[in-house]
């Protein structure tokens, strides 16, 4: 994405949406990514529904979603996000050990990446950098 003049979203003008019901995960990801990419604007949602509201009200360049959340789970959310904003890249991260999940995330929500929560923080940073348009 180009960086048009007058973009009020901040330097680079890119927006990342983090979706996770765990505040510590949300915030630690925010700290991690903000430190690595100071110009990135990070918004957070606590649930799939909240995330869909945000997506409906503002532009988002990349969405990073957890799987296990109350109500709508991450897969359902990403499937819906894909349906409505197919151009927006999606990454799923999870603490689950379920091999099938990665498969389903790829086929159903067409995610760009599937991250395990146990990976090195630096790898998370790099995955986000890679998939930001």
């Amino acid at each position, binding site marked *: 994405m180009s960086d048009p003049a007058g973009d009020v979203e901040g330097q680079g003008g890119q927006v990342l949406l983090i979706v996770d019901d765990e505040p510590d995960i949300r915030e*630690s990801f925010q700290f991690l990514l903000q430190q690595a990419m100071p110009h990135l604007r990070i918004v957070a949602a606590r649930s799939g529904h909240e995330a869909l509201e945000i997506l409906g009200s503002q532009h988002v360049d990349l969405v990073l979603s957890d799987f296990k959340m109350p109500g709508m789970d991450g897969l359902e959310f990403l499937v819906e996000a894909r349906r409505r904003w197919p151009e927006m890249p999606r990454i799923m991260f999870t*603490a689950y*050990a379920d*091999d099938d999940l*990665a498969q389903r995330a*790829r086929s159903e929500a067409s995610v760009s*990446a599937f991250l*395990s929560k146990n990976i*090195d923080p630096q790898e998370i940073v790099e*995955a986000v950098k890679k998939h930001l348009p």
Partner: protein
Amino acid sequence: MTKATAGGGPPSIYRVDMPCEEAGFSRPPFDVHLKVLPALAAGGDWTLLAHSSTGTADVMAGWLARQTRLEHVRFAPGPAPNVFRATMPALPALWSTVASLVKVHHLDLEADGLAAWFVECTRDQVHALKERLELAVEPGAKAARAEIRWHALPRRSRPVLSRRQFEALSTAVAMGNYELPHHVDLRRLGAAIAGVGRAFDTLKAKLSESRKAQRASAAALKQSEERFRSLADAASEGILIHDGVHIVDCNRAAARIFGYPEGELEGRPIMDLVAPRSRAIVRAHVSAASPEAYELMGMRKGGKEIPLEATGKTFAWGTGTARVVTLREMTRQRQFEHRFQDLVEAAPDAMVIVDGQSRIIIVNAETERMFGYARAELLGQPVELLVPEGTREPHAAQREGYIAHPVKRPMGKGRALSARRKDGTTFPVEISLSPVGSEEDLRVIATVRDISERLSIERERMEAASRRRDFEVLKAADRVKTTFINTAAHELRTPLMPLRTQIHVLLKGMPREDQRAPLEIAQRNLKRLSTLVEDLLLVSKAQAGHLILKSTTADLGKLVTEAVASYAEVARERGIALDIGDLAPVQLHVDELRITQVLTNFLANALKFTSAGGRVTVSVEDREDAVRVTVTDEGIGISPENLARLFEPFVQVHEGKEVSDPGTGLGLYISRQIIELHGGLVGASSLGEGHGATFWFELPKSPPDADQGSGSDHSPDGIGDFGEGR
């Protein structure tokens, strides 16, 4: 004699009925048909032909001798079994009187006491005869006199023989066959003969001719008869001879069986000795001249039934046939055996019948087959012979209880039972019991069914059900395990993530120098904890069978090269030479990520335990069916006892030794799981501590299963879901 006179019209047949006593005879115990042969009377002696349908010749002769009170009556067998000829010097007075007046055809004396004269005369002669008969009757016997009745028998209007019977009779007479069909009523025949005088004359002539020969044979017969009689009377079995209708002769035992005084059976119809319900079977055997033994219900004098076993033999006698029959009383046991033998033979199960003392009295062929005993070995033996030794005493006790209260016990009711074959082997059986007979004469029918086959089917079915249950339990356990692994993964990883992230953030955020070292210690230990968690999750998955390979065709040489490249930096830092030796390019169907995990595990271990200046060599060897990858180091080596348990979980053979990066003790175990999942082998060798070590794994060129994994997808972007694997 003024027999036929011109007056009084043509002669007719008249029948004159009167009591036997009036006719000069006492009431005979049988019917008798007496015929005077006038031609022979001319010679001085009178000859009578006596025929009875119910009395034998002997009995008739004895009776007639008493009637005539004459000493010189001679008897000879007649032309048929119950016909005899009597020759005597005089006749009873009345008979003489009647014969002097009219032509007498014959006199019938009936067992019910009635005498019937059949005479041929005119009406006038009837009156004269009547007068004489009435005169002859004792003056005081008015009642008897009143019973004299006269019947005119028209010559033609009342034929006593059908045309067919008449022709048969004529033919028989013409051919010299004197035996009359049994169905011909002799009394009526007499009347018929009167109407066919010529036929009768022919008969007379024939009789006359054969008289001599018969006399001669009579003597011989008498002699042989006496011999036969003494023999027969000595026999314990009843023997009787009959002509198909009447008993001709019998021995003492036969009379005893039927409860008659000696001499009273002769002349009786055989059916008098047969209970009505057995008459059909007797008739069938007699008419078929069957030599087979058979059972029947006899009838004693007085009507009481008696079970008998009879064997008959039909033989030629005179011009006809007679049948000699031996009779044996059946004891209750014999009766019982006979009644049940056929029945039990037809049964599909083994059947054993025991008496009140539990001795075997009947078995069937199936019993012989099932138990391996011959019938003779079983009969008379206690039934415990068929019971396993160990349970004979309780069985005997139980059976006594049963005999005291015998009830029908159906198949399959009661305990599991065991039976014993002759060879001592036992087998499971099901037994039904049915008591029969009375209390003092009890028998028990035991039906024995070998249920080994059924039991084994049932056992199989139960085992299958149990396997199904086990499978369900396992499946349930599997679900629990899967849930646990997933939950554990989630719950352990989730708090680790923010920790690692935040230490990362702090270290990146330019900490003060005095803060850096503590943060690095925290980071290192967090990483170690993360590795442990990942290793444990992987082990759990492997043990639950959830470690699924995602195999693709890969070049093993390339995987090795890449793994070595990723450790080149570490090796250089530690001053260790990391070389690739032989490197055969081999395409294999493997899960690249997992194989790389094993390679890095082996490499990391080799580098970890090799000192600076040492060397680590990796080689790929193309063997015939497999490819072997070997990692050789010049490290501290492994003792033989440790070599053996190297690939077990949580084994750290260098415990206590200071190493820069202690492992979880799961790396080699996980490596073994991965290689074995590929159908390969892992191994290690060492010349001992201080002599370095060699770790190898071997992968088959053809994979163990057609397709272990479902696709070619690994975790996206090459990011594995487990750590470095030490």
